[in-house]
């Protein structure tokens, strides 16, 4: 699996971080304060998650006065939405099940 995939998977593996990303996808641009209010974690924690999301190019920040607005970058998900990578994972696990079945079957 490509390195860019690894970074995306690792970044989205954390449930709190994923919730922040999903919220940005759903509700559009948000400030750190607005995200903190609904996340259930501290503002420094939210900022840390946003830095990780930014590093994976999943969000973009825009400074406006003292506020920073974060926006989800859906294009970063493109490699994951490619049907070939989805189906490759699907068939690998089907092959596993097929092999299990063959082991159990009579000749």
């Amino acid at each position, binding site marked *: 699996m490509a390195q860019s995939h690894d970074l995306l*998977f690792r970044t989205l593996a954390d449930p709190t971080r994923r919730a922040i990303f999903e919220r940005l996808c759903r509700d559009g641009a948000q400030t750190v304060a607005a995200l903190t209010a609904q996340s259930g974690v501290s503002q420094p924690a939210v900022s840390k998650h946003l830095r990780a999301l930014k590093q994976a190019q999943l969000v973009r920040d825009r400074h406006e006065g003292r506020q920073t607005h974060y926006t989800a970058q859906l294009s970063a998900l493109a490699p994951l*939405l490619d049907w070939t990578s989805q189906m490759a994972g699907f068939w690998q696990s089907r*092959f596993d099940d*097929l092999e299990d079945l*063959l082991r159990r079957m009579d000749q």
Partner: protein
Amino acid sequence: MNETSSETRSVVVEREMPFPPEKIWRALTQPHLIEEWLMKNDFKPIVDHRFNLSADWGAVDCQVLTVKPNKSLSYTWAAHGLESVVTWTLTPTGKGTHLRMEQTGFRPDQTQAYQGAKFGWPKFFASLEQVLARID
């Protein structure tokens, strides 16, 4: 993505199986066995036969294209906007069988995934978690 609607892409999964082709053929063509590793189905190894594969997440519409007992099998595979052909090839080896699956096709509108209409965020994250479970 620079996909065009006519672009064809494919997925290939291959594995050496320590079983004879005849045994693998049964698992690929008998409905009660197919159900155990793939999905519920009404498959018949007859050219032009239309069948469905169904799971809790949805269904796949298929039609048998070629049947060469113990050697190769192909059928169309249409689901979630993906039109494709799945081809199984069985090649005997000294120790068993080299099993190859190739899925070739294209999605007419790749961008529909962004709209979430047929795909949806929950499904996306469910499949993401499956992938995550496999990497350390």
